[in-house]
């Protein structure tokens, strides 16, 4: 007969793989998440700016003539022509970034242009830039005017506080000025930074790994134990000579076994779908995954050590997980939180796991060159286990 440990582990594995819903949540969910986020942040190779053109006068020149034609030529702009009302509505709905209002008629534009080209030396474009950025006239949407000699030709209507709008406004201004004859003082070259490790998906994958370590550890250990307690199975086991250490070791071993495919699937998916590669060695990744898994299994055990109902254990687990979901930097860097709380955030096990994984995967560090995270996770794991064993209630 095989040992109690082997049989208990085998039972856990059987129970797990015979539960299709659990399989989906554990393995399918992180993949869906990675896909969704990966697509959301990947398929915008070069951001296009949406520009609406509004003509306030009947004698305005057609959009394909004069400086406005430059906007239509450049692929980074998506130009829509429409009425003032329609444009404002699109602006409100976030469907356009900036509205170019053509303030003058064709004749005035031609003469003004002529004079601008004739009289303005290229360097003197500065006159137009003087009022830039325009001072807000109250309200979120204000009208900035591109002033040239003889008053404004165009007005830019946009939300001063929206980054996309500001970018679009400056790009439009640039394009119009150049089309109208401004000469740049020098040439500069744009280079795209798209190296592996620098994209959002590279930042996200370690975060998702950490998240699934946490969820898996707490649910996979905490929930399972409370469920067994409710079913009086723990009590039934207690009445047998089953070594209790075998029971806990089996819960832990099965948890680590389930983790393996979970982590591998996510890493392989990130690799093949998005080209995410670890800059550091795989050993470092595995070290942090293992330590993280142990720490969260320990916390799961601690949470479950006394709870008598599924409701109470679910509540406790959410209480434990929620702050870490928010604070530990799964989706964005935890550095964004105020400096005062940073030391506390750094103490959270999820922060340690994610920081450690990012250190290896993005910065190419070795596990032992991050002793803070390494030792911190080891302490979380051992303290939570020790405490859980003291508090654990079998019946």
């Amino acid at each position, binding site marked *: *007969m095989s040992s109690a440990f082997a049989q208990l582990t085998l039972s856990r594995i*059987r129970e797990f793989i015979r539960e299709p819903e659990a399989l989906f949540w554990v393995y399918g969910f992180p993949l869906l998440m990675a896909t969704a986020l990966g697509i959301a942040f990947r398929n915008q190779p070069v951001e296009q700016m949406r520009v609406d053109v509004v003509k306030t006068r009947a004698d305005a020149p057609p959009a394909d003539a004069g400086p406005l034609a430059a906007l239509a030529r450049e692929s980074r702009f998506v130009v829509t022509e429409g009425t003032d009302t329609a444009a404002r509505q699109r602006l409100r709905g976030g469907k356009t970034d900036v509205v170019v209002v053509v303030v003058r008629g064709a004749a005035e534009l031609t003469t003004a242009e002529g004079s601008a080209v004739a009289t303005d030396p290229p360097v003197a474009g500065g006159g137009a830039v003087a009022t830039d950025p325009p001072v807000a006239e109250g309200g979120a949407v204000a009208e900035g005017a591109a002033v040239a000699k003889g008053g404004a030709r165009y007005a830019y209507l946009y939300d001063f506080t929206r980054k996309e709008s500001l970018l679009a406004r400056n790009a439009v201004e640039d394009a119009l000025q150049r089309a109208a004859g401004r000469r740049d003082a020098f040439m500069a070259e744009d280079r795209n930074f798209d190296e592996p490790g620098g994209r959002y998906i590279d930042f996200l994958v370690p975060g998702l790994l950490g998240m699934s370590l946490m969820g898996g550890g707490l649910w996979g250990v905490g929930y399972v134990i409370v469920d067994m307690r409710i079913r009086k199975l723990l009590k*039934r086991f207690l009445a047998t*000579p089953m070594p209790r250490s075998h029971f806990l070791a089996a819960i832990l071993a099965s948890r680590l076994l389930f983790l393996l495919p979970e982590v591998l699937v996510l890493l392989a998916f990130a690799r093949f779908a998005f080209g995410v590669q670890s800059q550091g060695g795989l050993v470092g990744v595995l070290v942090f995954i293992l330590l993280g898994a142990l720490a969260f299994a320990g916390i799961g055990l601690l949470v479950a050590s006394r709870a008598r109902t599924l409701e109470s254990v679910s509540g406790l687990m959410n209480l434990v997980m929620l702050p870490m979901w928010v604070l530990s930097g799964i989706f964005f860097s935890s550095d964004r939180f105020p400096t005062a709380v940073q030391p506390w955030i750094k103490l959270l096990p999820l922060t340690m796991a994610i920081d450690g994984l990012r250190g290896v995967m993005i910065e190419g560090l070795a596990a032992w060159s991050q002793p803070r995270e390494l030792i911190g996770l080891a302490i979380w794991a051992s303290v939570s286990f020790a405490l859980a064993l003291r508090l654990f209630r079998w019946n």
Partner: protein
Amino acid sequence: MSDAIRVRDLRKTYPASPPVEAVRGIDLHVERGECFGLLGPNGAGKTTTIEILEGLLDATSGDVEILGLRWDRDGDAIRQRIGISLQETRLSEKLTLRETLRLFRSFYRQGRDPDQLIAQLSLGDKADARVGKLSGGQKQRLAVACALVGDPELLFLDEPTTGLDPRSRRELWSVIQQFRDSRRTVLLTTHYLDEAERLCDRVAIVDRGRVIACDTPRALIASLGGEHVIEFQASDRLATGGAGRRPTLDAMLALPSVTGARDDGERLALSVAEPHVAIPALLARLADLGFQLAGLTTRHASLEDVFIKVAGHALSDAEPSVRE
């Protein structure tokens, strides 16, 4: 050889306000090879008692010896030698019957072959079925199989047949009898009189945390003074309806061969040694007193009659005073 179970002045008080005295001084002594029953209503303290004996609960005070060993010193040794079935355990539904038994078998140093046990409990055709698909009776048999798989010397069963249909109950009884017939010991709790009468060599009647009678079922019944019970309804105004006057208990006790009388509310019940002597006398007496007889039945006395006599109330209408 030591006794299977020896209990002296066992008490268990649950802290509460006021404290709940679930067990209030129980003495038991179960010999090897016997099937011993704790019979009592829900809330009598049976489950508390059996769980203390199983090592699952600590007693407030008292002395417990299991197979000559004590829980505080030899817990592991006792666990190797006993098998238990709790009142309610939900085994993992995703595991098959065979897998469940193998799991439990792995906890014991020595034990029985799970497949052989499955065959013995006539669960062979269900061996590879998931526990979730079993009927209530099959689940209960599996629970007992889990108790037997360590080849125990002493088997504890808490309400083994509660909620089962008659056929499942009989199947389980035969399993328990087979175990007892191999000269090993069983301690079971039940609130079914027929179960106690049929299975148990000796029965302790438990009520409100105390043992109020303890003997073989036959001796307990004999203590009533008569092995037969006559139950009847009589009234002086039966024809016109209404409650009317009823014969007094004293008048009934004066009849020949009647050793006890009680009023069940609707009917009168007499404990009788020889019905063929008592019945003619009863009929004559009722006629003399001007009573009309509405119905009369005779039956063998049961443990229910014993329970009512010693506890002062029926088994089914005990107030559930203690959590079970």
